[in-house]
C-alpha cells in the first residue's frame, strides 16, 4: 500500500533521472561532481535524521567522514583488503565512533553537545596527524579504486548511485514510520515524547550511530573518488557545509536537504569565484536562512503560497462517533511494544 504513495514514486523518478545523467553529461568532470554529490548525500541523509528530524545540532560529522576515509584508505590501500569489505568496515567503524561520541555527549544540552561534536572533529584531525605511521600524517594516503566494473568514472557513479538510493530509501522508511514520529517528537516536544514512552536518549543514540555508519560508508567512497586524502581535506568547515545543506533544505524533509546538497556542491563549480569564497558564502547563507526563513528554503515555496492564497485555520464542528469510540476502546487489544 505504501509504495503507491507519492514519496516513493518521487524517489523512483529521481533515481531514473539520476541514472540518465552520464548520458547527457558533457565531460568526466561533471560526472565527478555528480558522484561527489551522491557521496555527500549518503552522509547528509544520515545526518539529516539527526539534525532535521531529531533536532540534535551535530557540527562534527566531518570527523566521522575522515574516519571512514582513512579506514578505507588504510584497509583497502595499505593493507590490500577487498574494497567492498573495507567499505563495510569503514561504515561500521563510523557507527562505532558515532556510538563513542554520542554516549557522553547526547545527554548534554544543545550548545554543549554542538561544542562536543566540533571538538570531536578537531580531535580526529589531531589524531590523524599524530599517528603519522598509520595515516601518512600530513602527507596523506592514497584512496584505491574499486574493481571493475566500478573503476571507471561512470561505473563508479552508478555504484555510488545505488548505495545512495539504498540510504535514501532507508531514510524514507524511517521517517514515515513510528520511529519517524518518535524522532520528530524529540525535536518538537520532548515532554510529549516522554509522556508517550519514547526513550529519548536511546533513540537519539540509535539515530546518531546510524548517521555514523552512513558517514563511514560515505568516507570510504570519498577516499576512492578523490584518490588521495590528506588531513587538510577534513576541516571543520566541511562539517559546516553538511550542516548548511540540511538547514537550507529545511528540517523534516528528505528532498530539501538532498537538493541543498546537490546545489551547494555544484555551485562552486558553476560560479568560479564562489570556490574561493565558499565558506564565507555558506556562513552568509546560513545567517540569511536562519533570520529570514528558518524553516528552510523548502518551506519558502509553501510560505509564498500561503501569502498568495492563505489557508485559514478552518473551523468545522467536531462530530464524535461515540459508539465507534466505545467499540475501539473495547476491541483493539493492547500488546506491549518492545521499543523502550
Amino acid at each position, binding site marked *: 500500500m505504501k509504495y503507491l504513495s507519492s514519496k516513493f514514486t518521487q524517489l523512483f523518478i529521481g533515481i531514473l533521472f539520476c541514472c540518465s545523467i552520464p548520458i547527457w553529461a558533457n565531460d568526466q568532470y561533471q560526472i565527478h561532481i555528480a558522484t561527489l554529490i551522491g557521496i555527500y548525500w549518503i552522509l547528509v541523509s544520515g545526518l539529516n535524521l539527526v539534525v532535521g528530524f531529531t533536532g540534535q545540532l551535530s557540527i562534527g560529522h566531518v570527523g566521522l567522514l575522515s574516519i571512514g576515509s582513512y579506514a578505507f584508505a588504510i584497509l583497502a590501500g595499505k593493507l590490500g583488503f577487498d574494497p567492498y569489505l573495507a567499505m563495510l568496515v569503514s561504515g561500521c567503524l563510523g557507527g562505532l565512533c558515532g556510538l563513542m561520541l554520542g554516549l557522553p555527549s547526547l545527554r548534554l544540552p544543545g550548545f554543549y553537545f554542538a561544542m562536543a561534536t566540533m571538538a570531536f572533529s578537531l580531535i580526529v584531525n589531531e589524531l590523524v596527524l599524530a599517528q603519522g605511521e598509520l595515516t601518512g600524517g600530513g602527507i596523506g594516503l592514497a584512496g584505491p579504486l574499486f574493481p571493475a566494473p566500478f573503476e571507471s568514472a561512470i561505473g563508479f557513479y552508478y555504484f555510488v548511485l545505488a548505495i545512495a538510493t539504498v540510504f535514501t530509501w532507508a531514510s524514507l522508511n524511517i521517517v514515515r514510520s513510528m520511529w519517524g514520529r518518535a524522532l520528530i517528537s524529540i525535536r518538537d*516536544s520532548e515532554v510529549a515524547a*516522554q509522556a508517550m*514512552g519514547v526513550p529519548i536518549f536511546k533513540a537519539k543514540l540509535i539515530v546518531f550511530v546510524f548517521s555514523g555508519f552512513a558517514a563511514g560508508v560515505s568516507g570510504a567512497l570519498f577516499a576512492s573518488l578523490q584518490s588521495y586524502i590528506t588531513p587538510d581535506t577534513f576541516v571543520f568547515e566541511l562539517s559546516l557545509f553538511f550542516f548548511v545543506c540540511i538547514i537550507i533544505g529545511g528540517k523534516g524533509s528528505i528532498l530539501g536537504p538532498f537538493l541543498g546538497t546537490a546545489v551547494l556542491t555544484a555551485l562552486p563549480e558553476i560560479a568560479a569565484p564562489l570556490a574561493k569564497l565558499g565558506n564565507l558564502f555558506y556562513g552568509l547563507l546560513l545567517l540569511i536562512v536562519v533570520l529570514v526563513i528558518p524553516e528552510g528554503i523548502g518551506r519558502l515555496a509553501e510560505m509564498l503560497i500561503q501569502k498568495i492564497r492563505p489557508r485559514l485555520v478552518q473551523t468545522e464542528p*467536531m462530530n464524535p462517533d461515540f459508539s465507534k469510540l466505545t*467499540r475501539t476502546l473495547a476491541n483493539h*487489544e*493492547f500488546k506491549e511494544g518492545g521499543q523502550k
Partner: protein
Amino acid sequence: MSTTPSSFEWEISARDISKKFGGLTALDSVSLSLRAGEVHGLIGPNGSGKTTMLNLLCGFYAPSSGQILMNSQDLTSLTIQERAFLGLGRTFQKPRLLPTLSALDNALLGAWIQTQSGFLATAFSLPFVRKEEEKLAELAKETLQGVGLGSVLNRPANLLDHGQQRFLEIARALVMKPKFLLLDEPAGGLTGNEILLLRDLIKVIKASGIGVLLVEHHTDFVFRICDRVTTFNVGKMIKHGTPNEVRTDAEVIRVYLGA
C-alpha cells in the same frame, strides 16, 4: 481477549506526597487515589498544587517524600516512559502536539508503546513493520473518528483550532490504550458546545474502564461528571468526597467557590 471493565481492580494512588521546590512547599503530605472506571476531579485555586500532583503521578517530578503506587507496585522510582508503558496516559495544560505532522500522525505517536518494530527493521521496511503500521494506523484513525476529528485526519496540527487540538491530545492518549487518563485542564479555552462534547467523551472513556483524573478550573463541569472530588489549597488537601459533599463544604466554599 475482551474483558469487562469492572473485573479490573486497578488503582493508582499517591500516598503522603510532599514536594518542595527549593524553599517552596508545593505539596504537603497529600494523598490521592484514582480507580479504574471512575472520574476523579481535582480542583483548587491557582498555585494549589493540582498540576504538580499530576506531574508527580506521571513522573515528571519526583516527590520529596511519599510514594506513588499502582495497585501494589511502587512507581516512585520509575521514569515517565516506564509509567507510560504501564498504562498512564495524560494531556497537558497547553496542548503539546507536533505542529508539522497531521492529526493522524500525532495520534499515532500514542501507539509508540505498542510498537514492536526496531530501527533497522523499519529502515528495511520489513513486512511485519508495514503490517504493524497499518494496524496501528487503523487504531488511530478509529480513535480520531470516535472523538470527532475524522474530517481532519490529514490536516497538520498547527492548522487545527484550539478545541480540535485538545481533543487530538485526548485521542493520542487514548491510542495508548491506557488504564488511567490524567487530564490537565482539558476544558481550557473550549466553547460551550465543545465542553458538552468533552463531558460526553469523558463519560465514554469512563465506561470503557479507564480511570480519569480531571484537573480542572470549571467547577460546574467537574461537579457534574465526577464520581469523587478532591480539593487542594496551597499544597494541602482540604476536602475529599462526593461532588455534593465537596460542593457544600464550608472550607471549600470559603477558599475556592466564593462566598
